[in-house]
């Protein structure tokens, strides 16, 4: 079984288990009194809530309103009208703390403050939900990448309207089979350059290549510009396929030499004698003439 197959099987088992537990989903048993929010919802808090959402909720619920939620395990699209209509920010706060079926309880793992921010973020998809303050508008920042292979340095230059932008966080990822692996976050200096020197060794493919992904950390503020690049900076994958060797369990073209030789010697010598006898038999007619 190849490594990849193992991953496939493991993920299949995981998905099946998730579906199984998700099917234990029951109706929410909502108490009559719910906790009130300690503060008013603001765009600043909504932005903080979005980070919490991405880290804890997005893997099942997807991006709200996009319909990329995992419906198979009963994860709702939290941006949908039906959800927004029936769930106040207090109810969302409570539900996050409770959990239900496949959804775990986040009572302890997310602080109350973050849970409120999360509720505000989720409710921000409701047009009727009142949020104070100014909506943050994204500037379309530009991202350029220069690569120094010798020193393994990545310089990301951030410009807004062709002017260097200071204090912008840029994230460097390596693409992996099931998602992107964050390897560093760098902040741009006064020249607008966020710099990262790769000191660690990361595994690449058989040739040592991996896919690098660079993007802004705060995509709300700076836009969704991304850079993809294949770098040959990884360690070469040492993958020994046991069926490549000459072994008894190998395919026919990888038969162990001792078997091949023994077989050929025995078969050829026996059949050459048989052939000799047949040839002599055909010549029998003329023998002694």
């Amino acid at each position, binding site marked *: 079984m190849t490594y990849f197959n193992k991953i496939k099987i493991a993920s299949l088992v995981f998905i099946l288990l998730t579906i199984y537990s998700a099917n234990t989903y029951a109706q929410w048993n909502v108490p009559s009194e719910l906790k009130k929010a300690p503060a008013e919802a603001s765009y600043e808090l909504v932005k903080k809530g979005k980070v919490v959402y991405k880290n804890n909720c997005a893997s099942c619920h997807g991006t709200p309103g996009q319909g990329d939620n995992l419906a198979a395990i009963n994860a709702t699209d939290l941006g949908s009208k039906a959800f927004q209509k029936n769930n106040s920010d207090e109810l969302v706060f409570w539900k996050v703390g409770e959990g239900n079926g496949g959804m775990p309880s986040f009572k302890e793992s997310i602080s109350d403050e973050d849970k409120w921010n999360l509720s505000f973020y989720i409710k921000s998809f409701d047009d009727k939900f009142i949020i104070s303050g100014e909506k943050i508008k994204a500037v379309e920042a530009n991202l350029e990448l220069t690569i120094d292979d010798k020193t393994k340095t990545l310089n990301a230059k951030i410009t807004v309207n062709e002017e260097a932008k200071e204090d912008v966080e840029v994230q460097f990822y390596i693409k992996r089979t099931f998602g992107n692996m964050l390897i560093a976050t760098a902040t741009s200096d006064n020249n607008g350059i966020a710099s990262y020197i790769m000191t660690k060794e990361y595994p690449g493919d058989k040739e040592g290549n991996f896919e690098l992904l660079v993007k802004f950390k705060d995509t709300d503020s700076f836009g969704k510009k991304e850079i993809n690049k294949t770098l040959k900076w990884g360690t070469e994958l040492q993958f020994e396929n046991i069926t490549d060797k000459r072994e008894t369990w190998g395919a026919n073209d990888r038969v162990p030499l001792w078997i*091949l030789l023994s077989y050929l010697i025995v*078969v050829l010598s*026996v059949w050459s*004698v048989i052939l000799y*006898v047949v040839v002599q*038999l055909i010549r*029998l007619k003329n023998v002694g003439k």
Partner: protein
Amino acid sequence: MPEIKNKDTKKSLSTIVTDLTRPLKNHYGLTPWMFFLLSVMGVGIASYIYQLQNGLAVTSMRDYVSWGLYISSFIFFIATALVGMLISAVLGLIGIKWITPIARIAEMIALGFVMWAGLIIIFDMGRPDRILNIFLHGRLQSPIVWDLTVVTTYVAISMLLYLLPLIPDMPFLKRVMSDQPKWKQTIYKLLSFGFVGRPEQYKLIKKLTRILAILIIPVALAIHTVTSWLFAMTPRIGWDSTIFGPYYVTGAFVAGGAAVVIAMFAFSVDFRLKKYITEYHFDKMGKLLVLLMLVYLYFNINEFMVPGYKMKAGEDHHILTLFTGAYAKMFWWVQLGGLIIPIILLLFKRMRKPIPSLIIAIAIIIGAFFKRFIITIPTLMHPHLPIQNVPAEFHTYWPSGVEWAVTMMAVSGAILIITILAKLFPVMPIWEIAHEEGISNEEINEFIENGDINDEEKTS
């Protein structure tokens, strides 16, 4: 006690020729016999077509017992076929004279059974149309490919070893059978390979026969050793044994020896050849069988006593199933009735006479058949992981009607080949018997030119 001696009555050449070619002309009783064989085969063919249409589900083979009656019959057929090598090669090469009249019979048994052994393997395949894949994609590491190679080789050598000593008989047949249908005469002419009785031709025939007789010994050992390796190369309880090769080979000699005794009896009575296959030959074959069975018994003791003494975890269950469990009845019947009692009986001279020999040989051969069943099935019933959560029918195995019918078709088919050969060619080498009677090649050639055969036939 006086030794049984080969009857020392001189036979003239014309007597020999007449006696040995009579069955080729006189077909009394052949029609019902062929009808019987062909009806058994007909039922088998119908069953096999039914199996082809409905798949192997019509057999009793399921997930655990995937080698059933077919594969046990396959080993039995290969085993029976091995006797050709023992009689005509081993005994012939060390110069044993009494085998002359039975060597060709042994070769016929070898040919008939080895050809059907190959077919039985195909009967066991769920998708016989994929047989070519063994040649195209077979792995040299697999004992199945070795088996295929060695079975093919054995068929080729057995055919040649049957054919070569037949060639000097062809001039007799051409002369004696001149009143027979044309297709027969064409066969005799073709198979004579231009043999006209020149001394150099005799010499060459003898030389080639000798080469093949030497060659067939390792090949025959290989065929049955490889067949045993189909089992022994796996780590399964009951098969994982280092003595499986010789254990199979000696067992094969026992089965084949018994088959030869049965054939000897049939031919001596039905073909009126009692003058040639005498009590002396039955006596000798009886003694030979005792020797072979003693060696086989020795291997049996090793095969069952060694693990039976240790009772290793895992093996203990298998051994107990054979000794006292589900297969105990068959196991002890096979060991006692097919081996130990025949050994004891055949020690007595009276039991080596034709009729007692025949009965004992039949017991041996039935025992040999079920011995292969005992080797194949109980092991499959003891997989490394316990059988659980499967339908009840997976827990047991007894061959279905289809399997019995197809297997009986194979047995009839092998006997059919022997019958056809016996009806086309003499069952004993005329020329060798003549040589043993002290008749020279010149006399033989003279006889073929001018000898009077019709005269003898009237009086007989």
